[in-house]
């Protein structure tokens, strides 16, 4: 099992692995001991506006989507797929569907009732507030529990390979920290609190002792699916 630490290391790993043509799939789970804001590819202006005053690091990622506040409350997962892997990367929607369903299945195994939402379910669900934040909105195959977002997804489809990333909310996220860092209204933090949930909140857990076992289970399913051809691919 491959585990990395920190948003800077994560972005560097992605840049390095996509710098040359990818021959086989690879993945890494990420924990974030320190908070940081990771902004989407279209949010350069936000970083320019806040870089000098931010009290926590602001980083850019090359995938799309809104701002993500990483920290001890989140588990990241980065999977890279070769262009030739048509069973999981034929189209951007099939890649999202494959990973969304895989993670929802593993969360069910843990006892978390949740669903990866199909495109019809998220149609017309644009957010009124905090449009700049990843977790305020719903995109196809992201994972929800009782209408609240639990897992966000993003993707890069580059000349050398495909990256699909997921962020699972493990525990309560300090949305005020995100809004304060990006100089956004306090009301948007309250809105994000109402629109999101976490594994600890759903299962009433007080710790993350379950996490290593769960990561190992996801790792095994990825290994079986991507290297051994077991079920899990999108038909």
């Amino acid at each position: 099992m491959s585990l990395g630490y920190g948003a800077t290391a994560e972005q560097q790993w992605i840049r390095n692995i996509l710098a040359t043509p990818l021959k086989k799939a690879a993945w890494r789970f990420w924990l974030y001991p320190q908070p940081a804001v990771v902004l989407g590819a279209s949010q350069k202006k936000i970083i320019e506006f806040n870089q000098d005053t931010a009290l926590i690091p602001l980083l850019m990622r090359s995938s799309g989507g809104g701002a993500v506040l990483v920290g001890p409350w989140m588990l990241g997962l980065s999977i890279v797929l070769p262009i030739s892997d048509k069973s999981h990367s034929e189209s951007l929607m099939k890649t999202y569907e494959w990973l969304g369903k895989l993670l929802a299945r593993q969360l069910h195994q843990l006892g978390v009732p949740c669903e990866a939402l199909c495109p019809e379910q998220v149609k017309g669900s644009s957010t009124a507030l905090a449009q700049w934040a990843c977790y305020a909105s719903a995109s196809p195959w992201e994972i929800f529990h009782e209408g609240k977002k639990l897992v966000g997804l993003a993707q890069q489809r580059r000349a050398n390979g495909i990256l699909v990333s997921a962020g699972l909310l493990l525990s309560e996220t300090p949305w005020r920290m995100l809004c304060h860092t990006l100089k956004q209204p306090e009301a948007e933090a309250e809105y994000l609190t109402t629109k999101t949930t976490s594994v600890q909140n759903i299962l009433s857990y007080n710790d993350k002792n379950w996490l290593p076992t769960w990561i190992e289970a996801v790792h095994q399913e990825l290994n079986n699916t991507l290297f051994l051809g077991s079920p899990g691919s999108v038909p």
Partner: protein
Amino acid sequence: MISIILEHQAWDGVAQGTEALLEKWHVEPGTQVSSGQILAEVVLIKTAYDILSPAVGTISEILVEKDSTFKPGQALATLVEG
């Protein structure tokens, strides 16, 4: 003359009416390009996409400006082969 587009497959399963954003151009009119060279970066459904040149040639016209959105099948630029 070849029209540069975001490949049709990219739009598979994407809800009707959805548009993509042209994030960055790597070339300009007059740039000579090789086959497979990255011409532009676009974003569709939280996915950053490289637009690659389908052939050797010269970019003749940019049709969708940076920070503009575009529809399925819409030409982003034109390429003169050779």
